[in-house]
């Protein structure tokens, strides 16, 4: 469904992605894990077209994403922190996002689950500038799921949400995963990842260290908890002969 072919990206002297080759398939829920500055965000951004790779190509449904933005209608993206035009209301924001997809997506197929579950209708007319961080996060989630996309990219989805909302969102992600959608997730809350994901992608220094099914990993490492596995992955990289990485 998504294929990265030899993606490299440098910012100035700093290499952020190095020859990434990777394929994601339908039905996978991939937890993208790595230390700060490892290239997680750049990987996601290059998939979304926000960052343009120096070399290599990315294919979504066998369509090269360069010079063609239509593939993005298949993607629902929930950013880490949502910043919206402060003087628009939630309704106008949703209208705008719907307008953008006019002609691409049938408005009858819209998925209002999250809006209903978070009770956003009650504050539909509120200006986005007046919303709290958590409420903005709810709006971001609603937008990501609204168009019933085949691919969901969720960047720290539960950060800033209260436990109840967090639980509602996780249920929704779980539901979509079971529908056979491809879900890419990043989170600092490892228990969330453990609950939701089927695969683990571990990136460090712009390279893929590991991309495996979670169940298989648990067998290999003989650990039941994801946090332990990740700790061990990081230790491997922290061999004493190497200089101390900057992210510690």
């Amino acid at each position, binding site marked *: 469904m998504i294929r990265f072919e030899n993606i490299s990206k440098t910012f100035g002297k700093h290499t952020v992605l190095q020859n990434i080759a990777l394929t994601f398939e339908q039905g996978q829920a991939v937890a993208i894990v790595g230390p700060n500055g490892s290239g997680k965000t750049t990987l996601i951004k290059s998939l979304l077209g926000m960052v343009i790779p120096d070399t290599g190509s990315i294919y979504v449904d066998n369509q090269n994403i360069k010079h063609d933005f239509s*593939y993005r209608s298949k993607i629902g993206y929930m950013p880490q922190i949502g*910043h919206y035009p402060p*003087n*628009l209301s939630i309704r*106008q924001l949703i209208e705008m996002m719907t307008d953008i997809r006019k002609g691409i997506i049938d408005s009858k197929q819209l998925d209002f689950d999250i809006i209903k579950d978070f009770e956003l209708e009650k504050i539909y007319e509120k200006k986005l500038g007046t919303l709290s961080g958590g409420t903005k996060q709810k709006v971001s989630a609603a937008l990501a799921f609204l168009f019933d996309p085949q691919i969901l990219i969720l960047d720290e989805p539960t950060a800033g949400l209260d436990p109840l909302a967090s639980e509602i969102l996780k249920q929704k992600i779980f539901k979509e995963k079971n529908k056979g959608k491809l879900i890419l997730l990043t989170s600092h809350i490892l228990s969330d990842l453990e609950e939701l994901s089927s695969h683990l992608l571990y990136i460090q220094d712009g390279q893929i260290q590991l991309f495996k099914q979670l169940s298989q990993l648990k067998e290999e490492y003989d650990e039941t908890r994801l946090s332990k596995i990740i700790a061990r992955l990081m230790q491997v990289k922290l061999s004493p002969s190497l200089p101390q990485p900057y992210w510690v």
Partner: protein
Amino acid sequence: MNKVIKYVIYDILRNKFVMSYTLLLLLVSLAFFGFEADANKGLLSLLNIILMVVPLVSIIFTTIQFYNSYEFLELLSAQPIGRKTIFLSQYLGIGISLCLAFVIGVGLPTILLEGTTKGLTLILCGLLLTLVFVSLALLASVCTKDKAKGIGIALAIWFYFSIVYDGFVLTALLSFSDYPLEKASLFFTTLNPSDLARIIILMKLDISALLGMTGAIFQQFFSSILGIFIAIVLLILWIIVPAWRALAIFNKKDL
């Protein structure tokens, strides 16, 4: 494209800064026309506002607005629309809003109290200058990710075109006064949008003086309809070229 512009305009028009700008322009215009018995003098006072305040507000507001909506631009770029659409919707959203503020603040009082060709020329030049400085601001903004640096560049651009440039030109004209500088002065004018706008307006307000110039080429150029037309086209180029450069950079920019 209008899918997004509508909402950008809607957002900016309710921006407190734009509202105060509109109100300020309105008060100043009414004051100028009210205090001066001679409408011509009112127009001359407004000229200073148009040459100094309008570019400053346009360039600073656009820069701040761009950096403030940076994350939103990111989110938009994850939607099924092109970079060009995103850029143009920002550009037109800001441009149309500021022009609307100018039309309400300066245009309406001018048309009501001095609806002559002079007044209309003043309004046209004010609108063109607004768009020129929106273009320049976006060019400055796409060149750096750092907000403080971006605002710094924007301020420097304003300072250069509104104040420093004319000082340089004056120094040059005075130091090389032994040489024929007619074509040079014409050329200098075209290199500064503020000067272009000023000369176009003055051709209506101070025509008697400008026609007395012994510098025949300059005078002939600007006193002909063709000359004014070319000057307006040049101003429009000052809108298009920076905006086009900014778009080219934005197209390849990593957000």
